[in-house]
Each structure stands twice: as structure tokens, then as C-alpha cells.
């Protein structure tokens, strides 16, 4: 655990193909807070490897870094959409998470 951080329990709700691939609707996570989007993505991939290649993907060919895949969005507590676009998002910026937070992993396409 990093200095000045605390371990908090959050959960990740999966929607669409992510839910089907993972075989579960909710993934509980114990994570350090504050943490970065990159750290969150890696923690989720470790807990739920089935998401790799689907909602999560390798950030680059040369490291173990993981990102939210293009085509997916991240929403906090059903309210705020978080920046995840791999082109314009700083994956190392702090992600403001609190214990009990629920992150929704869903398609970024809302067309019906």
C-alpha cells in the first residue's frame, strides 16, 4: 500500500458483452485509494481476466499496462461518466474513488 493511501472496497458492475464474457454482473474489488485509471484497469483485469481482450485491453505492446477498451465507458455511481478515451485520457491521473463506490463498465454507444 502506498504511503498516504488507504484500502477501500468498491464494486464494478458489468453490462453488455462484458457481463456475458465475465459470467458475473458485479465484480467486488479491494483497491488502494487514491489510484489511477491505469491501476484500476489492472486491478480489474487481475480479478476478472475474462475481460481482457473485450472491455479491457493492453495499453501497449511493451508493458503490462491495461486500459479500458475503445468502445467502452466508465461511469461512477450511475451519475458521472469518467474520461476513458485512450487517445485523450491521462491514465495516470488520480481517480477519485471512495469506499462503496460503484463503477459501471458499459458500452460507450447509447444508440437504440
Amino acid at each position, binding site marked *: 500500500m502506498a504511503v498516504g493511501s488507504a484500502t477501500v472496497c468498491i464494486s464494478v*458492475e458489468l*453490462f*453488455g*458483452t462484458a*457481463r*456475458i464474457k465475465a459470467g458475473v454482473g458485479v465484480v467486488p474489488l479491494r483497491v488502494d485509494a487514491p489510484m489511477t485509471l491505469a491501476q484500476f484497469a489492472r486491478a480489474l483485469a487481475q480479478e476478472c481476466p475474462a475481460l481482457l481482450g*473485450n472491455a479491457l485491453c493492453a495499453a501497449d505492446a511493451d508493458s503490462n499496462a491495461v486500459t479500458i*477498451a*475503445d*468502445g*467502452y*465507458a466508465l*461511469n461512477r*455511481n*450511475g*451519475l*458521472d*461518466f*469518467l*474520461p476513458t478515451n485512450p487517445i485523450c485520457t491521462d491514465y495516470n491521473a488520480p481517480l477519485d474513488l471512495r469506499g462503496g463506490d460503484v463503477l*459501471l463498465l*458499459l*458500452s*460507450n*454507444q*447509447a*444508440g*437504440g
Partner: protein
Amino acid sequence: MMSSTAAPDAGAIGNDGRRHGYRGYALVVNLSTGEYRRDPIAPALLRAAIGGIGLGVRLLHRYGAPAVDYPGEEIDDAERLRLLDAAFDPDNPLIFTTSPLVGTRLTTSSKFAVLTRSPLTGFIADGLSSSHLAVELKRACGDALVITGRAAQPTLLHIDTDGVPHLRPAHDLMGLSTMDTEAAVKARLDDGGRRPVRVASIGPAGERLVRFASIANDGGRQAGRCGPGAVMGSKNLKAIAVRGNPDDDPPAADPEGLRRYARDLSRRSLGAATAKYRELGTVANVSVFNRLGTLPTRNFQQSTFEHAEAVSGELLHQTRATRTAHCANCTIGCEKVFSVSTKDGTGQTDAAGVSARLEYESLFALGPLVGVGEPDAVIRAVRKCDELGMDTISAGGVIAWALETAERGLLPTLNQPHSSGATGAADTPLQFGDGATVLALLDDIGHRRGFLGGLLADGVRLAAARIGGDSDDWAMHVKGLEMPGYEPRSLKTMALGLATTPRGACHNRSSAYDADFSPDVNRLEVDDRRGRIAAASEDYSAALDSLIWCKFLRRAFGDFWEESATVYRMVTGWDDFNADELRQAAAQIADLKKAYNQRWGWRRSDDTLPPRTLTEPLPDGVAAGTALTPAELDGMIADYYAARGWGVNGRVDALPLMSF
């Protein structure tokens, strides 16, 4: 049929003097007189219009009935009804347009537009549909098929490879479902040795002028919204059968460049940007929208549905027999056909194995909106709408209104028997959540059978006006068009899009919801950027709908405007066409639609939302307590008019290029 004019030379319209991308004319068929002609369309107009919706709205201005003069500011109910019924006049044209991309084999490009004046809204009806019919229309009819007049008897319009329209009797087709009509027409006209004819048809709902009747083609695809099927029915036109000559496909100016681009776009269309549509289809929206408090439920009384999981896309895919359907030349395959049979075969509930294409909108409208959480009931209801040829959104919307109206005591809780002796939904209780009642009501509406069938077949606005009381307070429509499945109180940008889109409450001509599902805005609050965002979203849709690309491809583009302009150059050979010109063409479409609506009595008060959305906060879900006030909506509308350059009254005065 008699031709009153010689067919014009399709024209050399590319910079290189060759005909590229377009045919250069519209086939105009008068059902009253039996005459037809081919009207040239000037290259400059084609370039300004692009195609699809952009071309169609110009043709609607050109071939539509003369403008109506309104000296007063407001229109009373009697005059409104007269205007709505005037959509059934023979001089209201029914227009099919194609686009320069049709026939190129670019993924998702086999699409066409259907335009007319709506008997549901009184304003522009501009729908899209897709697949093989688009390709054959362009080959046989040119850039557009314009149908005017009214046939003296039930008619099949048949246009074969020579491009000559024939009016054939269709008495034997009357009463058939859309699917059976298509099959019967193909059986009659196909000779076994050539390519099949492609068919557009109406079902019983269109024959009976149900104001939200659709036009079906290619095995169940629908131009659904605003009642084009009712206009087709008013013309005594049961079906259109088309088979063109592949030799008439206009060549691309840069075929090799286009081939390379097409391959690359197809590859991108199979990437992450379209994964949702490929893998689950739009039904994936149900669980997401429910979680975000934006799933309209029980006639917009709630924004979450306690049975959402049962009708969610995820569960449907896991439990139902499913197959994927593709439009012609489409790599995405968003259409998921669900069966009432369970995946393992153990739960099959009937021998017929009823199945239906489920989209989010159909699923929402005939599920949560009417309180039905049983998947089989929804599948059967959607199938019923497709057979009858009715828009599922409007059908669900008007039934949801009836159920609430019955709950409030303004309609009998038991549907009344009627003099015809047909039972229909008679004696079925009107209450939310009863799939059998919904199915029975759909059948009654599609046949205009009984008191409720006749009442609801006119759409929710007229039904509420007829029942009175305060029932228009919960009549969920904009400009007479029933609301789609996007809760405006928790999607503030979309609220503006729904209020201002010319064809009424529409999620397709404006994609303003995109902003609400992004970090760019706070979807629960209003700010002064929404007017610009909504206008830009509408322009983006107008470009997509004119070229015509499928909207589900939109995130597969890099820079959409630059890329589309490049494709347009490769197809047409107009080498000086650029992204700015495309943007300008898209913006002009909004002006032309508004101008068309103004001709038919549009008033500032038509740009609004249903009273419920402006007076009642959301009661449930993560957005509980969220409201949208009339002042907030008016502020956004003012910003939208400013972004459009329309001034405070929202009117457009100057029209773009209209010379044909």
C-alpha cells in the same frame, strides 16, 4: 402506364464529364392518372442535397401540396385535425430517395429514405430503412421514386429492369401481413431465372390508415416512424416491387480508391467501436438505461423498471434462441432475431416458434413502457407490430397512455365490446404489465377494431384530445410523435433534441444523447452549451442520413467529415468537394425541414416536451428528484435557435439552393 415526357439523359455530372454516383433523375409516378415521367435533377442540387434525407426534403418541398396560409398565431384543434387528415390527400407525395453511396458496396451503405407529410404529426416524416431494396430502387427509379395521387383500386406498383412502372391489381394482397405480402408479391413476379424483385409493403395497419403505420421491406425492416405506411395506404398502394438492372449502377469516379477505402472501413467496422451492436444489438441498452435512471417505464411515470433484468439484452442472449441478421452490404449485423423458444429448447412455448427482430426501442416500448417484464410477451408484441405494419414505439406509447388513462378512470378498465361482433381486446382488463392485453390491443389498433382500436390508431395526441379531462398531461409525445426510450429529465441534452427535432420526439434525426452518455456534460443539469451540442448532433445525423451511412458506424470513423468528404469525391468525381461543404449541406437540411414544417403550421409552441416531463420530478433510480423546468427547457431552446441562426422565434426565413 403512360409516360408524359421522354426520359432525360441521366446527365454527365462529374468533373470529368461522366456520370458518377447519381442517376440524375427522379421517377415520378401518378397513381391517379397512371402517368409517369422522369424528372431531371440538376447536378448542383444533387451536390447540395447529397442524397437520402437531404435530397428527400428538397423533393418534398418541390412535389408537396401548396403551402397553407395561416393568418393566426395558434391553430385550434379542428384546424389541426384538418391538417393531419390532409396528409391523406392524394397530393401528399410519398418519396423514396437513395444516395450516391448506394451500390458501392461500402459497408452499411445500402440504405434509402422515405419522406412524406405525416398524418400523425402534420409535419415532415423522414424515415430510413435499408437493405436490397435500396440498390434496386436506384437501378430502377433513379435517385428518387416520387409517388403522387391515389389509385382507384388496391394496387401493386411494379417497376422492373426497363424502369417502366406498371400498376397491377392487388385485391388478393389486401389484409395480408407485411411478411405475407412480400412473399406473395415475390411469388407472383419472380421468374426463377433472374434476381428477385425487392418489395416494400404495408400491412393491415397501413390499409386502415393507422396513423403510425410503417412501410416494411426486405423481410421485416421498417421505415417506422410518423406513419408513412398510412400515407401509402391512403394511396391504395399495398406494395411496391422493384428490380433494376445492375448495368445501370453509376460507376464510381475512383473505383480503385473506393475499393481500398471500403476494405479499410469494413475492417474498422469489425472493431471495438461497433462491438455492442455486433455482439448484443441495441437491446443491450435496457440494463444500462435502467441503471442510469433513464429507462421510461409505465408511461414515463418511472425511470427504472423492476423487471428490467428479465427483459435485458444480456439475459435474452443467454436464454433465448437467437440469430443475427444483416442488411445488404453490412458487416455489423446489429439485428438480433429472438425466439420465444429457449436456447436449450426446453422452454418452447408454441410450435410456431414465434420470433422477432428486437431493437432497444421495440423492447422498451412493448416492455417497460407498458409494464411488461415477460420476454415472450414482448417478442410476440413486436412480431405482431411487424406483421400489422406498425411503429412499435408509437404503438407502445399509445397503449401506455391508455393503460394510465384507464387507471385514472377516464377510460373503462375493461375494453368495450363493439358492434362488429369482433371481440378483439373486449373484456380484457386495462392494466400495466399484462402482455395478453397489450397483444390484443395491438391487434385491435392494427385493424381499427372496436372503440379502443379506433381511438388508439390515431396516436396519443388525438386520443387524448378526444378523451379530454387532463389526459393530455400524460400523453407522451412531441408534435404528435410518441416518445422514444430516452428519459429527457435525466438526459438534458437529449431533452432539447427531442423538443426541437422537426419530425417530433425522435432519437434518430438527433443523436443528442451521445453527449449525455459522455464526460462532456452533466446529463442531470442544464447549461448554456446544449443548444450548440444539439445543433451539431443534428447536423452530424443529417450528414449520416444523407450520404447514407448507418449510425452504428459512426465511431468507426476517424474524422467523420473529412473521411466522408473523401468518399464522396471518390464516388462522384467532384474533386473540389470538401468537409466544409458537407457541413454546410448538413446544416441546410435543418433549415429545409423547419421551412417545410412552417408551411404546415409550425409554431414556437410545437417545440416542447410533454407536460409530465416539465412538471414531475423523477421518482426513482439514481436520478430520483431530477426535474426539468419549463424555463430550463426554454433557455436551451433559445440557445439552440441561436446556434442555428434562426432568431428568437425559431423561424427560418432564407432557404438554400432549391433549383432543380
